[in-house]
């Protein structure tokens, strides 16, 4: 009597089960991945927003510091501090200034500051180099 293969076959066949499990797993992973990605996007958005707020705060702090600096640099404040701290500093009186007439600066905006002296030095070094080259010739 031939063997009844139907009866002897296992109740659950492995192949389709594996397939179903793999498909389910893939679907689950895709779902989890989708949620994770959405969450990441949200979190990154939050971080972006925080950074923006921080940047804005830094800008405000910067403005505030610029304002304070302007106050500390104001002549009125400096004069008050000099008086309070008794530093004895004051603008030179005309009789305390030796005024020479040989190297006056005529151009507007030229103050006798570092730029003036740098230019003067540059001018003298140019003269020197010209003299040197003349000597070489």
């Amino acid at each position, binding site marked *: 009597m031939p063997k009844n293969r139907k009866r002897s076959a296992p109740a659950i066949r492995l192949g389709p089960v594996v397939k179903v499990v793999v498909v389910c797993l893939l679907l689950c992973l895709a779902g989890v991945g989708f949620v994770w990605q959405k969450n990441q996007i949200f979190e990154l958005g939050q971080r972006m927003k925080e950074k923006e707020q921080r940047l804005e705060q830094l800008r405000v702090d910067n*403005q505030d510091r610029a304002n304070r600096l*302007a106050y500390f640099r104001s002549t*009125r404040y400096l004069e008050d501090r000099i008086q309070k701290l008794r530093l004895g500093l004051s603008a030179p009186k*005309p*009789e305390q200034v030796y005024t*020479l*007439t040989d190297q006056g600066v005529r151009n*507007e905006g030229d103050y006798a500051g570092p730029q003036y002296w740098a230019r003067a030095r540059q001018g003298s070094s140019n003269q020197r180099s010209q003299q040197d080259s003349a000597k070489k010739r």
Partner: protein
Amino acid sequence: MIQAQQNQRLFFLGLVLLIAFCGLGYRLVDLQVHQHIQYRQKAEINVRSTELLMPRRGDIFDSRGQMLATSLPAKTIFADPTLIGGYQANLAKEIGPLIGMSEWDLYHKLQPKSFTRTNTDGSFRVVTNRYVVLARKVPLERWKLIKDTMRNMEFGDMSQLNRKQRGFFRNLRRSISADTVEDSIRIYPNNHLGAHVLGYTSTRDVAVDDRQAKEIVGMDGIELAFNNRLTGTFGYRETEKDSRRREVATKRLKEVAATDGLNVHLTIDARLQHLVEQKLADVMDKFQPVSATAILVRPQTGKILAMATLPNYDPNRPGDVPKGREDFRKNRAIMDVYEPGSTFKIVSIAAGVEQRVVRWGESIWCEKGNWKWRNARPLREYRGHSYESMTMETILAKSSNIGTSKIAVRMPANTFEGYLRGFGFGARSDIDLRGEAKGILRSSSRWRDDDRTRIPIGQGIAVTPLQITMAIAAIANGGTLMRPLLIDRLEDADGNVVGRYNPTPIRRVISSETSRTITRALMSVVSKKGTGRNAIMDYYSVAGKTGTADKAVNGRYTNGKNLASFIGYLPATNPELVISVIVNEPKGGGSGGKCAAPCFKDIADTAANYLNLQPDSVELDSPLLSRLQRQSQTPFINVMNR
């Protein structure tokens, strides 16, 4: 039998389910298809929002980059009295000092008040105030302090409270909060410095695309004149919010960034401005005048280095001027007109020299102090002097009224008027400030004989301090009138130059030869024999003129109320700086030589040193000269004998 009944029930149940599903399906289609647009809009309203992005108002700087005006974000603090219960006293004690309000005042403000409102249909309803503004323009730092104080306030043992009570205290801590509408505060770090030039600001509510916002607007000075440039453009951001009303940054739909206002760089030098204000304050102390004004100008470019008027005000608190003294906010340098008096003689004689109606060294008979010309009233000299023959140089040095008028009447009236208009009188100087007065200069066709003799000596004409300063600057500049420059450049927030204001010559009024002649004559005014002897400087030759003009009250000149002035430039041989000082009604009726000339000298001494101007003169008997000559072999290029 039983099976038939069962089938019947089954069929009925199936039918009910089918109808139910059909109903659900229909509803689904109705919601998702037919009413899709309405619900989509509703959902969008719930999650979407549009934020206004506030622009930052531009800063104002002086010529050396010192900040003169800036803006900082600020908050409007308000309270909801309905959330406070009986804790007004506690809040007033803690918060009062932080917002600069007395405990008592704050206590009263925090009391809930009910009042009736009329509805559109005429019925009444009782409402309780839920928005009481406690302070405006509170800096963010201060607001943070208030917020922390509210969060950390102690209200006794909280552990025994039920849910409702805990909710009350949670709301109590939120009863004082900040308005969501962004605001900002304008700050002038130097307080009073250059107040009239900078001006002040106010805040106005604006609606941008149906959203409320607060905007700073200039009310005076540069703030007003450059309001459009200083104010930026609002931006906006369309975005989505989550259930806790937090922005979902990744779901931004549209964003247009706000454009910040431009930064304005002035030609004003803060240190010179401070110096001028300090010296004017000394004048105010000494002579107690109604006001004192000074202007410093570069004649070659027309750049204004300082422009000050005292009394002034603090633009941080423009309302804090004495009651009834709103004129403290008035920039008298451009808004006030006055009869210039003797300083105007420079202009009259310059016109005469240019027209060749008078020559250098020519002798003019000054009628021994009493001169009647045609139908004009007799003209007399100041303080009854009786001069005889005088040259043009002496006329200026002694400030002779008769000598000046005699030169002026040699010209046809319309020619003389042409010179006056050429020097900029009777018209606005076109400075970058609002409210400038034109002055008063009537047409020569309407001049009577009185006017012909009085206008040359600065009577019957009204000028602003800026007009007369620019006119004298024109003489110092070799005869070319320059447009007064107050703005150097405009920069965007990144420091890129957007606009530059270059020196603009308006017209040549007199020749350079005439200018030199007048300068030579004006140098004799600032000499030991001239009226401007108090303006003599140690190292610089000065050309200038004093002025003492009686003020007219109710159409009559009054003794004791006068206007003392001094306008001059230095070094006279190569003018670099024009300085005018005008003292309005000094007590005791001081003259220009007594009140204004010393102030001119004080300003000029320090300013010349600061600007490193090349000296061109020194007195022969100066004790410094011998010391200097001992120390330095460098000879002075021009030793003047005054």
